[in-house]
């Protein structure tokens, strides 16, 4: 057999192991599939919960689309109109905002627990890579959606983020140094953040990113169904439960509780009340930039290090993190679950500290109130 044929055979075998389509039948998925029961079983519900919040995002996003105007002159006014005059507009918008935060929170916890449980071990590598890609895409959803209301914090925070991309050019050699500038202009659609930027972010947020996510999500869910839940712990679990109906029933109850949680939050607490009101006034290109411009809370893990550390260091950190995230199944192939759990706790500690206490640390180190 020639090398070319051998390579092709290996590729087909690899794909067959990763996507065992012979298991795609009623017997396997409904009658035979079992879920291990152990101390980490709660983590099996996080993926479904993320999916639930994503569905809420899609439904509320469609409702918002009926009224939202993606132009710099009308975007803010249309958001005001939705909030003040559209029937239940305030509730729908608030539900969209709260569920986006809940989705990101669940997704991050899902990724960390999946990592700690070594659920990326063969033959589940592609499930991990798909999930990691969706994590990155979800942050892209957050980034693009943040600009759409076209208020002070949205436009100014986007400017800061785009400026960071451009700054990375200073640390790149030769012709590569011009790439970030080109990237910035490509994202921005011009020399400044304006109508072209809003149009691009709108298209990305409501068409391009959802289409990509739907594709990856379908593959992710199909793979999970074909392979079943990973063992998750070192010793073989003594107990298992049927995926259908017991796990699905519990999943449904968790979704019900999650729905009630975000319903109460959306009715009672406007998400914007956590920020100072001048940040939500219409963006004025000629006016002064209000205090307290920051990205959304789920970007604090990069925002505060950017404020505290040299830019090049954070940039290297981000590139390394992104690479490790995508190559996790191969990098940690031989790492024990115990070690993975320690790393997962360290990541959790970092995320919690930077998100909850980043401003306090910044104040202590630099004496600046963020």
């Amino acid at each position: 057999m020639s090398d070319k044929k051998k390579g092709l055979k290996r590729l087909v075998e690899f794909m067959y192991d990763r996507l065992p389509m012979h298991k795609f039948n009623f017997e396997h998925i409904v009658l035979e599939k079992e879920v291990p029961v152990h101390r980490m079983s709660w983590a099996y519900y996080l993926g479904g919960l993320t999916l639930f919040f994503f569905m809420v995002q899609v439904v509320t996003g469609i409702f918002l689309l009926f009224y939202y105007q993606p132009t710099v002159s009308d975007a803010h006014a249309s958001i005001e109109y939705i909030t003040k005059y559209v029937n239940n507009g305030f509730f729908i918008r608030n539900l969209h905002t709260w569920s986006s935060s809940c989705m990101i929170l669940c997704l991050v916890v899902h990724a960390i627990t999946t990592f700690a449980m070594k659920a990326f071990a063969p033959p589940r590598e592609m499930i991990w890579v798909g999930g990691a890609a969706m994590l990155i895409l979800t942050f892209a959803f957050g980034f693009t959606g943040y600009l759409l209301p076209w208020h002070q914090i949205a436009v100014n925070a986007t400017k800061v983020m785009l400026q960071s991309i451009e700054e990375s050019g200073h640390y790149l050699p030769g012709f590569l140094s011009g790439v970030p500038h080109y990237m910035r202009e490509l994202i921005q659609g011009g020399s400044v953040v304006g109508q072209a930027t809003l149009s691009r972010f709108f298209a990305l947020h409501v068409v391009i990113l959802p289409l990509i996510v739907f594709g990856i999500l379908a593959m992710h869910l199909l793979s999970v169904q074909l392979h079943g839940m990973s063992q998750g712990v070192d010793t073989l679990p003594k107990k298992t439960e049927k995926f259908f109906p017991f796990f699905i029933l519990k999943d449904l109850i968790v979704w019900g509780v999650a729905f009630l949680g975000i319903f109460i939050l959306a009715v009672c607490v406007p998400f914007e009340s956590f920020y100072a009101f001048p940040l939500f006034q219409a963006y004025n290109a000629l006016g002064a930039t209000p205090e307290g411009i920051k990205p959304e809370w789920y970007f604090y893990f990069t925002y505060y290090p950017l404020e505290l550390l040299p830019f090049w260091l954070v940039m290297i950190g981000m590139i390394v993190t992104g690479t490790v995230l995508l190559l996790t199944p191969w990098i940690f192939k031989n790492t024990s679950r115990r070690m993975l759990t320690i790393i997962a706790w360290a990541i959790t500690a970092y995320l919690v500290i930077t998100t909850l206490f980043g401003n306090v640390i910044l104040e202590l180190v630099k004496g600046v109130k963020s």
Partner: protein
Amino acid sequence: MRIVFSLLLSTCLFSSMAMAHPEYLQYFKKESGRPINCSMCHMDPEGPEGIKPDQIGGLSKEEKKMLELARKARPGDNITNPILNLFGNEILNTIGHDKLVELEKDPGEIPKLLSKTSDLDHNGIPDYQKLLDGTDPLNPNDGLPWKLFKINFMKNWFQIMMTVLATISGVFGLCYTIIWFSIRTKKEFK
């Protein structure tokens, strides 16, 4: 040219009268710990000085007359100052212009002099409290989150209870449909 001319004219005419009050802003910013801006009381977020339509330099003849009247406002009057928003006018008409200027040295007294029941945005948090909290008295969706949660929960408790009941019923119904389906499939595939 017209803009420059009107800016110069307004500066000459109103330089003695234009009274931006950074003391108030600085005081409530410090007390509340929230970055606020002039739009808490003024029509324009940048404050009263300037040539935009709601700023001193951009006022029409009639509005300038109203501004003059507002500068003589006494407690209990019902005067509309064109550079102030609804809340700014409420402060002006409750306290009076002279007292307000006097309180520049002690802005902490302003909330004490305001009505304890007035709530311009009808969200349940009185205006004086919003001033102390550094939140927008004219935006019903702005307020300290915990306060808004308590008020909105009490206001919407019936809808919340109905939704809880509907969700429980829905989940209960779906669960039993799944259980029924599971029993049927087991029977079919035995």
